[in-house]
């Protein structure tokens, strides 16, 4: 077991990689009553195609479907077992990962054992898989009525030509109809073995105990990693520059995204994602001149937000909210990026970088955030707590260059949901 100290951000982290390949992170949080544990697999909505001993092309929505079915155990339901032992359990499926986690203030060891057991034990019957079709079918119906979801789904289709991010995480009624117990077993076997997963714990717990419990509960065997297929590399430009639909909304809602070059693996990738966040803030964050101007002109309101997304073979900047004229917002952002590509005020750059740093350190109050970021960092080849060092190496010139390369008409996609009848 290795201990790394991150004094600048006031965190310590214990780490050990088990013989079966599972990395275990434990972040000690003295003085806290609650503890949090997440068991995460590097498998999500975008991993439909992969190769083990043969090539698999699985239906859209299967990772999410599998998440729903994982809680079933021969002896009953793991969700209920965790709840009755005082834990608050949950799970989510993203494009890149699926995470199972709980928080509790008592019976931590017992709950951790349950978590490790149910996630590593597949138990599906044709009847239970069939029953889930109806439940997930309803969920699909619900999200398809949700303007935010449709707008985001359209955006990914407009941004990418063939990257698997284009496919919905939850799938469609047709795609999930093709899922049966055998496909679920095959996906579990390919992606839910310790070598493709991470265990992260935060709380006032004994790291030795966590590691030995993981060692005792899980298989000792190592297994070859499935090869994930993301298809051909994407072109630099977006697939479509504009995409829209009409739904029940009171005002037009939009997301404007710019396709970036995929971030590198390793610590350089962490640096690139911080650089991208900083660039987005400088461009149109809450303290930027452009934000103030657009707000005062009534082109954006409180709902406006900026962000970056970072997936294997795909990264983008996004800006979104309500607007009476999303097209004008796009033009204003493009113009401002052109200006910043030439020169960024050094003082404003320092200030923004410092604000980004402060916000990132404050996020460490959240155990969920710590654990999920550590897991994602492992899959991308860096230690999340190294973020503090990255700030030192980012310059205003880096941001200018990034904006010049990334924020352009031809890399952009504007996805809008207009009110019905507009």
């Amino acid at each position, binding site marked *: 077991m290795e201990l790394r100290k991150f004094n*600048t*951000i*006031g965190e310590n982290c214990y780490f050990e990689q088990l013989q079966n390949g599972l990395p275990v992170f434990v972040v000690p949080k003295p*003085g*806290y*009553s*609650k503890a949090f544990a997440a068991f995460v697999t590097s498998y999500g909505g975008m991993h439909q195609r992969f190769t083990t001993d043969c090539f698999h092309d699985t239906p859209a929505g299967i990772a999410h479907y599998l998440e729903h079915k994982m809680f079933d155990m021969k002896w009953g339901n793991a969700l209920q077992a965790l*709840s009755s032992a*005082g834990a608050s359990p949950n799970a989510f499926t993203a494009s890149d990962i699926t995470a199972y986690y709980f928080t509790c*203030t*008592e019976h931590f060891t017992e709950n951790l054992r349950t978590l490790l057991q149910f996630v590593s034990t597949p138990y599906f019957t044709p009847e239970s898989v069939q029953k889930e079709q109806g439940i997930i079918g309803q969920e699909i119906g619900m999200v398809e009525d949700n303007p935010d979801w449709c707008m985001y789904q359209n955006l990914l289709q407009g941004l990418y030509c063939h990257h698997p991010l284009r496919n919905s995480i939850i799938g469609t009624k047709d795609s999930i109809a093709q899922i049966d117990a055998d496909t679920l077993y095959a996906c579990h076997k390919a992606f839910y073995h310790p070598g493709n997963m991470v265990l992260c714990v935060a709380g006032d717990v004994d790291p030795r105990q966590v590691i030995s419990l993981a060692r005792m509960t899980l298989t000792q065997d190592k297994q070859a990693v499935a090869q994930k297929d993301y298809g051909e590399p994407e072109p630099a430009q977006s697939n479509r520059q504009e995409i829209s639909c009409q739904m029940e909304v009171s005002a037009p809602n939009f997301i404007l995204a710019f396709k970036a070059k995929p971030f590198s693996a390793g610590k350089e990738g962490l640096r690139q994602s911080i650089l991208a966040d900083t660039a987005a803030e400088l461009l149109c*964050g*809450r*303290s*930027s*001149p452009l*934000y*103030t101007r657009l*707000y*005062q002109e*009534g082109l954006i*309101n*409180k709902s406006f937000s900026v962000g970056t997304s970072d997936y294997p073979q795909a990264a983008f900047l996004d800006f979104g909210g309500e607007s009476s004229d999303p097209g004008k917002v796009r033009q204003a952002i493009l113009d401002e990026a052109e200006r910043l590509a030439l020169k960024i005020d050094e003082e*404003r750059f320092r*200030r*923004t970088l*410092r*604000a*980004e*740093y*402060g*916000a990132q*350190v*404050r*996020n*460490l*109050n959240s155990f969920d955030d710590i654990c999920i970021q550590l897991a994602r960092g492992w899959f991308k080849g860096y230690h999340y707590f190294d973020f503090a060092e990255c700030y030192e190496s980012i310059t205003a010139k880096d941001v200018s260059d990034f904006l010049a390369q990334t924020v352009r008409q031809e890399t952009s996609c504007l996805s809008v949901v207009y009110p019905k009848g507009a």
Partner: protein
Amino acid sequence: MNTPIRMQLMPGVWLTAIQTRKFKSSFWSLQLLTPLEKKTASMAAVLPRVLRRGTAACPDQEQLGAALDDLYGGVIEPAVSKLGEVQMTGFMATFLDDSLTLDGRPIYPRAAELMGDLLLRPATKNGRLRSDYVLSERQNLLSDIKSLFNDKRTYSAVRLTQEMCRKEAYGVHRLGTQDEAEKITVTRLDKYYRQLLRESRVELYYCGSAKPEQIRQAWVEALMGLPRGQERELPETVTRIQPEEVRLVCDQMTVTQAKLAMGFRAGTCIQDGDYPALLMMNAVFGGGPNSKLFLNVREKLSLCYYAASGVDKHKSLILVQSGIDLDKTEETQQEILRQLQAVRDGEFTDEDLEGARRLMLNQLTSCQDSQGALAAFYQDYVLSEHMLSPEELARQVREVKREDVISSAQKVVLDTVYLLTASLAEAKQEN
């Protein structure tokens, strides 16, 4: 974590400060306390939003944003809430904790200064609040009031409180009403703002690594120039009301699921000795996944999609909310009352009692792991003579006995039933 220190900084200005190194951030709150009244509630609600738009030194969002960015990306947000029949309006803020700055320069004096500027030295034009800020924030407030309607679960709780307390100040929503919000003008708001500064009690809160004495000093400097006139007395919230008869109120709308909300008078508030018993009683009745409402009304009889009860600890109310099929209203109402009667009759197991106790103790323990929850906990006590800690309340919860839960339930009286359903005719038929 240290216990909070409470001190008076100047007439009518109080600080509650907790020193701890547990968190990465410092948590701040600045609240003006004023009687909750229909004609002023919307002005009190819009005021911090207007003030947040700019100060004399940083007159727009860009410059205010720059000042916050300079403090490692601090966040200051307008906040308005109700504490019984007292309205609180002001700001909540969070900054990087001083122990984690890269240059070692403390943030706390500048954070206090900035909040003091927001309160006392706003951006003005011709000596008054800027009209463009007032008008655009009035618009934002109006749209927030209108959107209360969007979520039918929230809306049914708002309507129930409004109807049940229609003769009490508590019936006023924390954002006020659409009518009153529309009447906001620069002249009226500017006058109200200055009056509020002179007359209202000020409650400050801090949780972070700085010493309480340092925080006191920083606030004293930041609030220099706060005009202090005759402090307006805060009303004592009316908590003991015996309803004469049960009122039924029904609204109709295009909905596929009906909302049934029932308001009870509990006869016990946060300042009373039997408050821990009320908390336990609510947990047994409808406060969690092991409660009578959840297990019987939802799970066993499948009468509803959700059914839960909550306590308003200042106003001494229990509100039960449920989402039901349109034809199940009468049946659900009867079943909810039957479950309350069961608690009154002592029909609950020791296991139910201990399950409820675990739920309460768990909440009180985990609230100390979150700065926001901790601030909310202590804020509930600013009007009490004695400020309890979560540990002290937990100790009292541990001592609650079965008889205490029963007597607490026996004090509970139904006041108003609110139903939101598809058609009035249909609902009448049901009853």
